[in-house]
C-alpha cells in the first residue's frame, strides 16, 4: 500500500497552484503599490498635492540638498539600532529563562508574553501617554515613594519613544530567541564543562554561536519595522521627535509633495536592502560556526 502524503491531497497539488494565492496577494498589494512609489519618485508633485506626469530627476538630489533629511535618517538609524540592542539585552535573559528554567510555568509565561497583542497597538501606546504624563499614575507613585521631586517630564522625548518601541517590539525578539535556545543541545554545554570551560566560557563559545541564527532573526524582526516606525514617535514623541516614517507621512499628508515622499520611501528601501544583504552575509557565517576555537 502506498503511504499517503503527510499533507493528504494538498501534497499532490502542483507547486504553481500552491503559490498562486500568496503570489497574487503580494503582486496586488505589494509589488503594484511599490511600482507606483517608484514611478512617482521620478515625477513632479502638483501644487497642493497630487502628481503631475512630468518626468523629473529632482527628487533624489533633494534628499541631499538639506542636512535635515540626512539628520532624520541618522535619527532613525540610531533609534532602530538602540531599540534593537535594548530588545536583545532585555529579551535574551528572558528567552533564556523561558527555555531553561521556567519548567511547568513555561506555557503560561509564553501566553502572557502574547497577551498584550490582544489589545490594539494604538490603544497600548495611548495608554503609555496617560500613564507617563506629568499628572499620571507613574508620576504620582514615584512622588509618593519620594523617588521623584517635581515633574516627571518623561513624555515627548527620545527616551519616551525608545521605551515605546522596546515595549512594542520585545515579543518579536523573544520568540525567535526562545526557539533557538530551546533547541540548543544541552549535552554540548555539559561537554564544554567536562572539557574545563567555565560557565561564561561555555556561554560565549557554545550558547551564543549556536543561537546566533535566532539572535539575527530577532534583530531583523525588530529592526525592519523600527526603521519604518510612525505611530510611536507621533504619539510618545509629541510630533517633535521625528523619524523617517513621520517625514514620509508628512510629505504625503501635509506637505503635499508626493514625488519627494516617494523618493524618501525608495531611499529607505535601499538602505534596508543594504542592511539585509549584510545580515545574510553575517548569518551564513554564523550558521557554520568554526569549531575548535
Amino acid at each position, binding site marked *: 500500500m502506498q503511504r499517503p502524503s503527510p499533507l493528504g491531497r494538498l501534497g499532490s497539488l502542483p507547486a504553481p497552484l500552491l503559490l498562486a494565492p500568496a503570489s497574487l496577494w503580494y503582486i496586488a498589494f505589494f509589488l503594484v503599490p511599490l511600482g507606483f512609489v517608484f514611478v512617482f519618485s521620478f515625477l513632479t508633485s502638483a501644487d497642493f*498635492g497630487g502628481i503631475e506626469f512630468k518626468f523629473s530627476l529632482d527628487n533624489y538630489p533633494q534628499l541631499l540638498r538639506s542636512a535635515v533629511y540626512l539628520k532624520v535618517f541618522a535619527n532613525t538609524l540610531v533609534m532602530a539600532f538602540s531599540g534593537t540592542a535594548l530588545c536583545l539585552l532585555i529579551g535574551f535573559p528572558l528567552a533564556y529563562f523561558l527555555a531553561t528554567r521556567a519548567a511547568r510555568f513555561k506555557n503560561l509565561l509564553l501566553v502572557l508574553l502574547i497577551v498584550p497583542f490582544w489589545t490594539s497597538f494604538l490603544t497600548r501606546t495611548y495608554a503609555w501617554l496617560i500613564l507617563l504624563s506629568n499628572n499620571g499614575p507613574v508620576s504620582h507613585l514615584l512622588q509618593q515613594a519620594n523617588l521623584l521631586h517635581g515633574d516627571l517630564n518623561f513624555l515627548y522625548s527620545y527616551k519616551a519613544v525608545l521605551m515605546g518601541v522596546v515595549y512594542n517590539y520585545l515579543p518579536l525578539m523573544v520568540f525567535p530567541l526562545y526557539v533557538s535556545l530551546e533547541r540548543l543541545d544541552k549535552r554540548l554545554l555539559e561537554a564544554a564543562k567536562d572539557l574545563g570551560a567555565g560557565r561564561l566560557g561555555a556561554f560565549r563559545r557554545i550558547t551564543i554561536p549556536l543561537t546566533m541564527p535566532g539572535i539575527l532573526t530577532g534583530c531583523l524582526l525588530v529592526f525592519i519595522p523600527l526603521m519604518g516606525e510612525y505611530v510611536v514617535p507621533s504619539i510618545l514623541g509629541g*510630533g*517633535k521627535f*521625528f523619524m523617517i516614517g513621520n517625514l514620509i507621512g508628512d510629505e504625503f*499628508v*501635509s506637505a503635499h509633495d508626493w514625488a519627494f515622499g516617494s523618493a524618501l520611501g525608495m531611499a529607505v528601501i535601499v538602505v534596508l536592502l543594504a542592511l539585509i544583504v549584510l545580515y545574510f552575509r553575517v548569518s551564513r557565517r554564523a550558521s557554520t560556526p568554526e569549531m575548535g576555537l
Partner: protein
Amino acid sequence: MNRIKPSDLTRRDFLVLSAAASGGLILAACGGNAAVNNAAASETPVGPMENALSIYNWDQYLSPDTLKAFQAKYPSLQVTAATYASNEDMLAKIIAGAKGYDIVVPTGYMVEIMIQKGLLLPLDKRQLANFSHVDARFRNPGYDPGSKYSVPKDWGTTGFGYRTDKVTVPMTSWKDFFDNASKYSGKVTVLDGATETVGMALKYFGYSYNSDSDQELSKAKDLLVKFKPHVGAITSTDYKANLTNGTMYYSMGWNGDFEALQGQTPAPPVKYIVPKEGSELWVDAWSILKTAPHPVAAHTFINFLLDPKIEAQEAQYTYYAQAESEAVALTPDAIKSDPIVYPTDAVLKPLETRKATAKGQKARDQIFSEFKAA
C-alpha cells in the same frame, strides 16, 4: 492681504448674485437630478432625498445634540462622520481619491485651493433658504466671492494661551511667545500646521502672515530652528489636555479651545491672548464635495445647520463665534459677551486671513519639515 470687512453688498445685491449662481447650477446639475432644480426654496429637501449622508469634519466640531436633532428630523438618513486634524490632512485624502464623503469643513484659504482644484460642488442656494440668516459681511468672502462654494460655519482667532500660575513674565506678543521659550524650555507647544507655525514666526518680525518673500521666510525659519530645542510638543489636538494637567505651560492654539478650558470645572488657570503684532483671523466653511454621493442630503444638512437656533446650540459646544447675528442673539451671555469668542474691533484690526499661493505654501511646508526634524 485679505481681511474680512463688512461687505458692500446689500441684501438685494445678494439676491441677484445668488440667482445668477443658481442659474449656473441648473446647468451644472442637469445631468444629475432634475427634480432638484424645480423645487422652490424651502426648508424641506427638494427632489428625492438620498438615504445617507457622510460628513468629513474636524474633531469635536459638531455638537452631538445637533446631530441627534437632525437625525430626529430626517430619520431615514444614515449619517456617518469621520474626522481630520488639519486642512492639509483633509485635502491630501480627497486628492488621493477618497470617495464617499459629502460634506467637508475647510478653512477659507483651503476653500480657495479646493475651488481651484475643482473639488467642490457649487452650492444650490435654493436648497439653502437659511443662508438668508448669514450676516452680510460673511457673504462675499475673498476666498469664495459670492459664497458660491461655501457657507460660513464658525470664525475665530489663532493665538496662544498660558498658565498664569506657571508663567511669571508678561505675555502679550509673539515676541514674548518665542523669546520666553528658553525660560520655559520643554513646556511650550505649537500647532501641527505649517501655515500657523511658520505664519506666527513671520508675525514675530512684524511681517505679513501671508508673506511669500524668500528673505522674510528665511528669517522665520532661522527663528523656528533656534526655538525648536525648547519645544515641548507639536500638536493641534493635545494642547488642551497638556495645559490642563500642567505638562505644558503655554500653547499656540485656537480661541475656541481656550474658551472650552474656561468652561471646565475646575477651570485651569489659563489665559488666552491674541498677540499684539497680529495673528490669523479664520473662517471655517461648510462645503460639498464634487464627488458627493448625496448632494441633496448634504444641502439639507447645511441648511439645517444655518438655522440660527441650531447655530446658537453649536456655539455652546464648539465655543466658536458664529456668522449669524440672529444666532449670536440666542447664544448665552457667558459666550457672546466673552472677548475670547467675540474679540473687540481693536483686537480684530491687525488680524489677517490666510491666502495661500502654491509657492508660499511649498516654502512653508519645507520650513516646517526642517523645523520638525531639527
